[in-house]
């Protein structure tokens, strides 16, 4: 098949009339079948999402009877969310997510700046150590995190169990290594001449960092902030261990609790809550696809 391509390339005009039927059959063989495949893939990708949307509008809160799509249209489930702690959880998730994102971005950027712009003793060793440390997932050490917070809580209650601040600190500790690396590469791509000229003009290292470098690295800041937010948003094990009181839960913990017990599971509430929580994430994700994929391939957070 491909062997014919050079021929058409060499003599594009004359065979065109002859090629017309062959071109059509080639299109059938090579391209047309891809559309049904695409439809199938989209069906598989989308049917659970369509189902959850339909279930959220159902009057019945149970799984039974939710099979017929959009059989009813009722906002009862959405209204019922107001009687639960749902909105508190949304707020908690946002608080924890934003704090983690901002903290992780600032600390990662500062560390990356130091490694990229200063030459000091032990720099290589520190980088290697950081690389090795960040390979070990923090979640596996959750028992130690639990015991540490248990002990810290006796001394500083805000850093103890059931504190959102403590959870943010835990996330910050776990995020730093990978973020620093992601940013380090980007910082290196900014020419050093820029800071050198600033230095000549009398700028301090702090001014160079805040006024010159930070505006130049905004894209990577956005990526790291977004990834950190997603990690905090999607985390379950650490938030489940740390946040014990219902009013402190994040969405992951709260919504798990709604449906974990088969007997009292409330799927209507879950579906409505999932739709509300997923829409902003979905929009944000699809809008920022390009950046997220770039960040993922570099850091590989999810997948």
């Amino acid at each position: 098949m491909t062997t014919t391509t050079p021929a058409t390339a060499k003599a594009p005009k004359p065979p065109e009339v002859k090629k017309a039927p062959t071109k059509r059959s080639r299109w059938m063989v090579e391209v047309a079948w891809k559309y049904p495949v695409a439809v199938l893939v989209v069906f598989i990708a989308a049917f659970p999402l369509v189902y959850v949307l339909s279930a959220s509008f159902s009057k019945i809160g149970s799984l039974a009877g939710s099979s017929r799509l959009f059989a009813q249209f009722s906002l009862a489930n959405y209204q019922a969310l107001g009687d639960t702690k749902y909105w508190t959880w949304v707020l908690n998730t946002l608080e924890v997510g934003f704090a983690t994102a901002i903290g992780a971005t600032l600390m990662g950027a500062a560390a990356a700046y130091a490694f990229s712009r200063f030459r000091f003793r032990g720099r290589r060793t520190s980088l290697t150590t950081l690389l090795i440390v960040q390979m070990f997932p923090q979640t596996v050490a959750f028992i130690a995190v639990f015991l540490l917070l248990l002990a810290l809580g006796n001394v500083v209650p805000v850093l103890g169990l059931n504190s959102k601040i403590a959870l943010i600190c835990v996330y910050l500790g776990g995020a730093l290594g990978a973020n620093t690396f992601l940013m380090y590469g980007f910082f290196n791509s900014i020419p050093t001449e820029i800071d050198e000229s600033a230095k000549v003009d009398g700028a301090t290292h702090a001014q160079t960092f805040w006024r010159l470098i930070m505006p130049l690295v905004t894209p990577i800041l956005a990526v790291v902030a977004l990834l950190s937010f997603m990690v905090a948003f999607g985390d379950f094990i650490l938030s489940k261990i740390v946040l014990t009181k219902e009013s402190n839960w994040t969405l992951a913990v709260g919504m798990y609790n709604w449906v974990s017990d088969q007997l009292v599971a409330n799927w209507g509430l879950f579906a409505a809550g999932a739709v509300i929580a997923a829409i902003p994430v979905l929009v944000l994700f699809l809008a920022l696809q390009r950046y997220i994929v770039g960040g993922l391939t570099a850091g590989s957070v999810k997948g």
Partner: protein
Amino acid sequence: MPSTVLDDPEAPPQRTSLARRWQGMGWGFVSKLVLMMLVNAFGLATIFSAIGAQAWGILIAMVVLLVVADIIYFTKLAVPLKYVFPGLVFLLVFQVFTMAYTGYVAFTNYGTGHNLTQQQAIDANLIQNEKKVDGSPTYPLTVVRSGSELGFAIVDEGVVKVGTAEQPLQVAPDAVVDGSGRATEVPGFDVIPTSDIYSDQQMQKDVVVLRVPVSDDADEGSIRTQDAINGAIYRSVLVWSEELQTMTNVDTGVVYVADPNTGSFIAEDGSTLTVGWRVVVGFQNFTKALTDTNYAGPLLKVTAWTFAFAILTVLSSFFVGLVLAIIFNDERVRGRKVWRTLFILPYAFPAFMSALLFKGMLNRQFGIINDWFFGGAEIPWLQDQWLARFSVLMVNLWLSYPYWFLVCTGALQALPKETMEASRIDGAGASKQFRSITLPLLLISTAPLAIASFAFNFNNFTIIWMLTEGGPAMPESNTGLGYTDLLISAIYRISGVQGGKADYGLASALSILVFIVVGVVSAIAFRQTRKLEEF
């Protein structure tokens, strides 16, 4: 002479640069000062609080961190550290320390019944085994309060005595006793009416556990109450001997010897007191995981499944993603952007919600998978061990193929055009070209991601816990371990952080196993990517 020559031309620029620096440092310096004030205030508060709580480890760590922070930010000894330090603190405390601490706990018997130090364990046992002393008179009792501290006032043959948990009973000469024989006014204390206690559950609990020592001598026992009206002397039936390191039950005469190897008080007949203490037990946790019949078999299965799950997930999602990428990396297909966006929908939906959603959809009786695709057959997707494993893999495939689709599409588009052109001119057919050029180039660029994905899925707690909670449970073991448990969820179950019997030691030992696997895999990735070369 030279100095004046130098002075004159240098004077104006020096002045401006100083002025500029002052302006620049003005804001920076003020904000730095404010931040450091907050840091120091927090640090000092923590230090004092740590002294109060006798938490020496936290005290030392806080002092060191605070001193280092002040040195770094108020001197110019280490400028790079000014940037690295904040992140470093979090990394050290919440990642490096926790990893090291996991390593330590793995060699201890830390867990239910072994939570405390030996002294705390002794006290706990003494309190737990307190009994009302035979023949002790019942004293009319009043609950009193001084600040936030509760206490008891009793009337002993007309004399009012008052005390708290810290302060043994003392005679209160100016107290007032009412007609029923109970104290109604005690100088220095507020009397709490009985009705207040009965209406406040928390206070009820506090009152029932309150022990007011009769005197400075602990052997004389302490006053306790069950009803907040009558008090009696309680004394522990156990007696601790420091020299002999034994606990003796004076009622039964049984002697419990403190065994420093197991952290328990053991009697001759093998029975132990409920509360033991924390000791280093060496490799006991590791041998338990490998040889204890209750754990060894199930854990072996769990480990095998963990590897299978991680490998199969990577392979299947990579394969599906690659095939889709190849099929739709074709300029002749119209609306590719729209198709692509629709393809990656599962990836944009938060993963934990997808997993929970599938748990509902795979429900045996009411789930739509059975209803829509299998004509209402009640297929036990999550109840049968093999079907459950299959379901977990399929759901994870649904979740992760978009990632590989995106990655492979990107990699395909980044393939060098010249190489492809050259191979075509050399007469390579489509399949030959794919096998010899496209695939090898693609594998090289995606291998590090595949390894990272393996490491991620090896610890993919969320999907397992949301979908099956590790179940169905293995019938041969009472540990609660299930057929779809990954090591991380097995650790979670065994650790007992969510209640139930806790075994931090064994769970940490298994964590070490996971660390080793992840470490080895990462080391391979490390060599693959050769990130070090970038330094």
